[in-house]
Every structure is written in structure tokens, then in C-alpha cells.
């Protein structure tokens, strides 16, 4: 094997170096938030503070029929996810009398807006149809009834899993909103 001369070595080295620089530049361009398009605008809204939150149970509108197991599963999943956020010293349930003594209590209302009961069998057989979805409006309300923040959130189960999994998906999204609000 012929030994590489000094000139050939430097020539190969410079080609390799150029390649690396080009690759790095290309990867930077591939991340739109860094060089290309600007990333999401910094949040202008101030974060709320509260030592405790109470989840209030809200009835759906009269023309919206939601199975009771779905409503209960939504409520319990939201309680679990609120606790997991660790943003509050205490998460109170709806109707809990001990919440009355908390001065900076925030009340979370989960108001059902829309519900579509899908079918697990249809989902698993067709893949494209049979999704279950539930849309709710979540409101953070102060003790005096002032709405501090509100947002529409939708929970879905599209492909695999039982219908009640939509309530878990919804609760995770509610927890995400709580994380960005507090």
C-alpha cells in the first residue's frame, strides 16, 4: 500500500472538514426554530399562583348526553393528573368542605362541550374510523367567581384502546394546561 503524502493528507483533511461544516449547517437549517422560521412566541400571559386547587364537577348542557362512566372517569383522571403535576400543596375534590379555609384557592371547572362515542372494534378493524373524542372547556376560577383563564381541550382515542382511554388523554392535556398556567 502506497504511503499517503503530506499534501494528499491535508487535501483529504480539508475535504472532510468542509463536509462536516456543511452537515452542521444543514442540520441547523433543519431546525426551524433556531435559524429558519421563528419559534413559538414567548408567553405574554403571567403565570397564576395558588397553593391549592379544587376540581368542580360541572354538568354538561342539556342536549349533550355523556355516559356517566365517562364523566366519572374524566373527573377521577383529572384528579390524578392534577396531583401528578405537583403544582399545588393540595388538590381538593368537588364538594370538599375543608377547601373553604384555603385563602388562595383556585377552582378548576371542566365543562363538557362535545362528546362522540366511537367503537373500539371499529377502530381496530378499520384503523381510520371509530375514534372516541370528548371536548371540554376548562376554566380556572378564583374564589369570588372571576374567570382567570380558560381553554378548550380535546381528548381522543384514535387507534387502540378502550373508549375510556379518551378520558385519560383529556386529563393529560388538562394537566399540560395546568403546567403552563401555574
Amino acid at each position, binding site marked *: 500500500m502506497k504511503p499517503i503524502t503530506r499534501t494528499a493528507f491535508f487535501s483529504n483533511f480539508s475535504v472532510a472538514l468542509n463536509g462536516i461544516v456543511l452537515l452542521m449547517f444543514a442540520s441547523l437549517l433543519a431546525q426551524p426554530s433556531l435559524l429558519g422560521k421563528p419559534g413559538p412566541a414567548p408567553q405574554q400571559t403571567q403565570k397564576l399562583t395558588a397553593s391549592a386547587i379544587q376540581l368542580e364537577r360541572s354538568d354538561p348542557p342539556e342536549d349533550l348526553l355523556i355516559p356517566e362512566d365517562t364523566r366519572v372517569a374524566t373527573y377521577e383522571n383529572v384528579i390524578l393528573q392534577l396531583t401528578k403535576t405537583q403544582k399545588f400543596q393540595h388538590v381538593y375534590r368537588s364538594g370538599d368542605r*375543608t377547601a373553604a379555609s384555603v385563602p388562595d384557592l383556585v377552582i378548576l371547572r371542566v365543562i363538557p362541550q362535545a362528546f362522540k362515542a366511537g367503537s373500539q372494534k371499529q377502530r381496530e378493524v378499520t384503523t381510520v374510523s371509530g375514534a372516541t373524542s370528548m371536548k371540554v372547556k376548562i376554566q380556572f376560577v378564583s374564589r369570588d367567581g372571576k374567570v382567570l383563564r380558560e381553554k378548550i381541550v380535546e381528548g381522543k382515542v384514535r387507534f387502540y384502546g378502550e373508549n375510556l382511554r379518551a378520558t385519560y388523554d383529556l386529563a393529560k392535556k388538562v394537566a399540560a394546561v395546568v403546567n403552563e398556567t401555574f
Partner: protein
Amino acid sequence: MTVGSAQFNPEMSSKQRKIVRRSLQLAAIGVVFVATAGSAFSQQLGTPQASQTTSIPHVKCVIGLENIKANSKGTLSLLPNGLEFATGKNKVDISTASIQDIFTGQESRQDVSGPAGTVAKAGIPYGGGRIVSLFSHNVEVLTVEYVDSNGGFHGTVFVLSPGKATVLKNQLVAQGAKVTNHVQPPPQGEKP
């Protein structure tokens, strides 16, 4: 026992001795049979007394009980003063007085489900997993709403074999559990 050591009259012929011995053997077998059948019969009689507290095994608690993991399987029992759900490690009671409402509903579940079932179905070639997905069974869902000592609302969802949720609901209502009239959503062919 002294069955085998009975005193025989020496004047008895060997044929008579044989008959006496055979009849004693038969009597002994009869005693054993009656004793066995008697104990079995008494166990059968005892069963309804034990089932006065209805106990349903293999019930799935979907969500809502503290210290019980979601989708845990256990035994749901109707006690004289409420419901009890017990898994291998934990036990949770719901007193009848704390129950605010009870709902029952019919649903269906896939015969092959869960993460392992999903992977197995995905592994069947030529879309065979979709054929497996066509098989399902009916279940009944029992939703119990209750309050804790502070007035906090709780709800729990159980999945039982068909017919059992309605029986439990009726028994709880007979115990004095509160139930309101419900507007049920229209039935769906294949809900869950």
C-alpha cells in the same frame, strides 16, 4: 372399630359366617358412605348462608378507588353496610350511606386486548389481527358515586359480567343507597 372382631357362634356353618361377615362389611361401607354424604350435604346447605354477602370475583376496577391501581382485578362484595373491593393486597369499602348515585350500563370489550393482545394482533400476517378484533364479549359497567367524610365527591367504575351490576345495584338500593332517575344516552351498537 370393632366391626372386624365380632364374636361368632362356633356352631355357625362357614356359609353363615360368610354371610354375617359380608353383611358387616356392607354395613361398614354404608356407615362410611352416609358420613361422607352427610358432610357434603351439610356443605351444600352452608353455601347459601355464606353467599348472603354477595361476592363477585374477577371484577375490574377501572378507576376511582384510593390505594387501588387503575384497571386492577379483584373481588367485589356486597356487605350488610355497603360495597367492598378487595385485591390481593388492598381492600376498600364504600358505605351505603355515602353513596350518592349508582349507574349501570351495557358495553362490550374486545376478547383480545391490552398491550400484549395488541402486539399479538399486529404480529398476525395478512391483516389477521383485524379478524381477531371482530371477536368481543358483553360486559356490564357499574358506576358508583359517593362522598368521603369531608363531602368530597368520588366516583368509581367497575366492569362485571353481564347481569351482575344490575343485581348489585338493586341490592344496594334495598340497603338504602340513593339513586336518581337517569336519562340514558341512546344505546350504541359497539360502544367501548
